[in-house]
């Protein structure tokens, strides 16, 4: 095959030499024949004549050879490209308009595809990532949950195809150095994590199963970024000791650059899980704190692994009927786990941006159709001198692909800019968005898009232009009526109006959802709240709550601070622990499909600081101590569920935790949107810090959140840091942020989605309006004579206006109706993303339809003014 390629390139680039060679070969042939004829007794003249006669003409033979030549299509392509470039150079205005239109469409698509490529197609930093699965426990109520220690160990003990199951838990540690302390995030993981993910440290070694036992000593692996920034890439870090939470940890390795277990948080360290099976947390079946992952066998599908797991579940249940009822496991691919919730919205955005490109294509196709009319003379001449229609179509398609490549190049520049804007919008929960860049994949994508698009918008105009009726065309002037193109133009305008309407309806629904969400009452007042976290120092391990209170007192004493309170898992902190409760002396109720009661640990004044209404009773006070009667506050929805139409005050409840007492309800608080404005309300029980079960206190007091209400926010963070350091300067405060910011972060994905959707819809509307304007302006120019005659016959300017605008209205209404039908079919796809808005929301449909018709009226009104100014005398003299 390589010889064939050489032949092609020779024919393409050494065109003259190849041609010369062929001619020499044929001449030599003639010479040989002449010699032969002469040898047969003919005279020199006659011999040569006979030879030429036998040959049948040097040029003809050359043409025959060229027609079979391997490089022929390439040669034609090259001719077409050069000719096309020449044609385009001659009409810079047309090229600028078309290329800019295409650039908007292709640029938006390139940018959006970069986001998809970075976020959805991003390859996790593992070996064979498609085999990595996240494992969940199936709860009896159908919900999924992460593992408790006994559950995890029971699974691990099973001899199964999933022997390499790894467990992990996220956390944070205070990294101490002579410059001060810093809180860093990371993971505790079982030693199987390395084989499950298929990674090895870039430096040093992974921790072993022996090091993953309780009491095996403290070892830690660092992330590449921590190693680079904090330790200046110093390889001698291996074997040295780090101060983590006041304990010495031996550094045994550094992970490869770009490695992370999950892309959401900046992970800085990895240490062995060292599961203690004896302490209260680890032995509890109801404390679910371990996330598990496993690697499925290459040949076994997810389904096969799932059925193997189901079999184990049945066996475990048989061996230990006291375990969680209805217990089972579900598998989810890692990719699904990380991107499952954002794939839908991103794909819908990709689809919308595809619509924008289609609209841009329609516009350019319209321009080409108009141009086809003015190129009729050129086409006729080509046809007259014998050009095949297929050859002419190919030439025109080459031209349109050239055009789309120019548009694509401009589009790439626009995509660069657009990506910068997208990164500024950077929603908190869109993983790997930083990976969205213009890389080779994107360039290939854009080139393919350009080729497809060039053919897509070029084919109809090319077919129309190449259909030449020779006898008429040559007689007509190049300013012919071009009736055949008119039909296509109207169809294209209706199509793009319809596409724009679909996008606008989608964007409208998304905007309305955002508006509805913004009006949701979170159940607290987020304004003027600052929060931070703090972990107790080693010296306060026995009395963490006392330490927290000292920090709280110091903060309360700061000027400008109105009130402050302690809380574990405050709203919008993204941690939402739940535990089933028993009420009024009964057993815990877990029924199918029911939400497990959420659990919060709070201090006095918590509701006061959050401005969450206490509807009945009182909130916790300093007098609710470890020695006093255990008390709890329940949310309104919890009271509704367990004690409908009864007074919940004085009722009792007990969380399903080891050595938990019965708590007496002393207050009912308003419901709070814990995970964000657009999330469901779940029944919640609040317990006071000092009355939490002793066995769980070490877990519950690993850190606390302090919430401060202050009229003055500027400088508060520094003042708080200073105050906390005054209590103990060995532990840092971390995650310092305003609740306003947390609320913004919680809604950032929805806003991101809405912003892009609205931008694409706006772009679509503008492009469609430009399209309508172009077609109307062209049509007015074409109909100047007709309008002149009408006016000469007594038509008023109003009549002319009605004539032109009427045509626009007809197209707009047809387009909007088609768009509404399309939207009915398509907006169903986004139903799950809508909040309190139906996918067929009448008001959105009506508003968008009216707006689009109005916009298109405007676009057709401008050309109609020119029509009204037509002077009948001028117009009729025109021909």
């Amino acid at each position, binding site marked *: *095959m390589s*010889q*064939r390629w050489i*032949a092609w390139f020779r024919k393409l680039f050494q065109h003259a030499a190849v041609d010369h*060679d*062929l001619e*020499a*070969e*044929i001449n*030599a*042939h003639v*010479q*040989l*024949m002449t*010699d*032969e004829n002469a040898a047969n007794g003919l005279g020199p003249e006659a011999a040569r004549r006979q030879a030429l006669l*036998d*040959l*049948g003409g040097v040029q*003809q*033979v050359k043409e*025959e*050879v060229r*027609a*079979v*030549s*391997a490089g022929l299509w390439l040669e034609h392509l090259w001719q077409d490209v050069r000719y096309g470039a020449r044609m385009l150079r001659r009409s810079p205005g047309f090229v600028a308009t078309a290329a800019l239109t295409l650039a908007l469409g292709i640029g938006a698509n390139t940018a959006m595809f970069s986001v998809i490529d970075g976020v959805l197609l991003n390859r996790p930093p593992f070996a064979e990532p498609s085999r990595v699965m996240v494992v969940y426990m199936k709860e009896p109520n159908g919900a999924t949950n992460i593992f408790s220690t006994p559950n995890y160990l029971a699974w691990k003990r099973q001899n199964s195809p999933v022997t390499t199951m790894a467990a992990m838990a996220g956390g944070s540690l205070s990294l101490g150095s002579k410059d001060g302390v810093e809180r860093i995030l990371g993971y505790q993981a079982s030693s199987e994590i390395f084989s499950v993910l298929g990674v090895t440290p870039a430096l040093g070694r992974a921790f072993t199963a022996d090091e993953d036992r309780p009491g095996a000593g403290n070892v830690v692996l660092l992330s590449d970024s921590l190693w680079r920034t904090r330790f200046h890439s110093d390889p001698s870090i291996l074997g040295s000791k780090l101060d983590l939470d006041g304990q010495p940890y031996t550094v045994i390795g550094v992970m490869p650059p770009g490695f992370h277990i999950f892309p959401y948080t900046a992970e800085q360290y990895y240490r062995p899980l060292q599961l203690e099976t004896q302490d209260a947390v680890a032995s509890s079946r109801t404390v679910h704190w371990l996330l598990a992952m496993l690697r499925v066998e290459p040949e076994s599908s997810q389904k096969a692994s799932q059925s193997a797991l189901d079999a184990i579940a049945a066996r475990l249940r048989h061996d230990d009927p006291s375990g969680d009822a209805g217990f089972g496991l579900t598998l989810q691919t890692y990719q699904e786990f990380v991107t499952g919730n954002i794939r839908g919205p991103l794909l819908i955005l990709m689809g919308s941006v595809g619509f924008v490109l289609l609209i841009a294509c329609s516009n350019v196709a319209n321009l080409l159709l108009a141009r086809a009319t003015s190129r009729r003379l050129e086409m006729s001449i080509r046809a007259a001198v014998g050009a095949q229609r297929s050859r002419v179509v190919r030439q025109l398609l080459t031209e349109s692909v050239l055009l789309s490549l120019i548009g694509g190049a401009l589009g790439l520049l626009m995509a660069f800019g657009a990506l910068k804007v997208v990164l500024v919008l950077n929603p908190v929960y869109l993983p790997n968005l930083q990976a969205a860049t213009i890389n080779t994949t994107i360039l290939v994508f854009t080139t393919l898009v350009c080729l497809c698009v060039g053919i897509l918008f070029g084919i109809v105009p090319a077919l129309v232009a190449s259909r030449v009726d020779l006898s008429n065309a040559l007689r007509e002037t190049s300013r012919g009526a071009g009736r055949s193109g008119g039909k296509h133009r109207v169809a294209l305008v209706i199509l793009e109006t319809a596409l724009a309407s679909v996008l606008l309806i989608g964007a409208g629904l998304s905007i309305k959802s955002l508006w509805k969400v913004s009006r949701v009452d979170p159940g607290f007042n987020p304004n003027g709240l600052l929060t931070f976290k703090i972990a107790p120092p080693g010296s306060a391990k026995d009395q963490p709550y006392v330490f927290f209170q000292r920090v709280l007192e110091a903060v309360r004493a700061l000027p400008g601070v109105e009130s402050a309170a302690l809380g574990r898992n405050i709203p919008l902190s993204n941690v939402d622990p739940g535990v089933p409760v028993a009420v009024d002396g009964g057993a815990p109720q877990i029924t199918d499909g029911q939400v497990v009661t959420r659990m919060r640990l709070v201090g006095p004044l918590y509701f006061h600081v959050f401005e969450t209404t206490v509807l009945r009773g009182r909130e916790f006070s300093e007098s609710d101590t470890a020695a006093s009667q255990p008390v709890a506050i329940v949310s309104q929805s919890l009271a509704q569920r367990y004690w409908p139409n009864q007074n919940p005050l004085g009722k009792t409840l007990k969380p399903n935790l080891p050595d938990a007492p019965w708590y007496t309800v002393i207050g009912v608080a308003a419901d709070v949107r814990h995970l964000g404005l657009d999330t469901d309300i779940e029944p919640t029980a609040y317990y006071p810090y000092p009355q939490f079960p002793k066995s769980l206190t070490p877990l519950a007091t690993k850190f606390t959140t302090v919430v401060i209400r202050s009229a003055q926010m500027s400088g508060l963070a520094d003042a708080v840091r200073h105050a906390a350091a005054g209590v103990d300067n060995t532990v840092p405060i971390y995650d310092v942020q305003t609740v306003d910011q947390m609320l913004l972060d919680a809604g950032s994905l929805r806003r991101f989605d809405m912003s892009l959707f609205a931008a694409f819809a706006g772009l679509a509307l503008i492009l469609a309006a430009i399209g309508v304007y172009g077609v109307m302006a062209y049509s007015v120019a074409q109909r100047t004579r007709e309008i002149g005659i009408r006016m000469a016959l007594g038509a008023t300017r109003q009549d002319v206006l009605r004539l032109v605008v009427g045509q626009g209205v007809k197209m707009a209404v047809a387009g909007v109706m088609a768009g509404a039908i399309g939207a009915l079919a398509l907006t169903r796809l986004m139903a799950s993303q809508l909040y309190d808005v139906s996918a067929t929301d009448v008001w959105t449909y009506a508003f968008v339809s009216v707006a689009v018709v109005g916009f298109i009226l405007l676009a057709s009104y401008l050309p109609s003014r020119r029509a009204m100014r037509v002077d009948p005398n001028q117009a009729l003299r025109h021909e």
Partner: protein
Amino acid sequence: MAKMEVLQGTLDMLILNALKLGPNHGLGVSRRIHQITHGTFDVRPGSLFPALHRLEDKGWLVSRWGDSENNRRAKYYQLTAAGKRQLQTETESWERISLVITRALRAT
């Protein structure tokens, strides 16, 4: 025997066969085909040269300039290894087909 136009597709095979004995120029190939088919096929330059170039593009022939027996410059074509293989396969398949068709036509 009357002269026939060469069948489409068999020309390639005839050219490859004509070059089996050694390199030759266009006229030589034409004469050789005339000879081995006992004058049945007459290949005109208008079919010969396109075929030679096509076969060269496919990599079955290579060409170079050389001197003819009476010291004229001419372009000589030579079978490549791929060309020899191609001739072999074409000959085999032709023999099979012609046998089958002959039988089919004689069958009643």
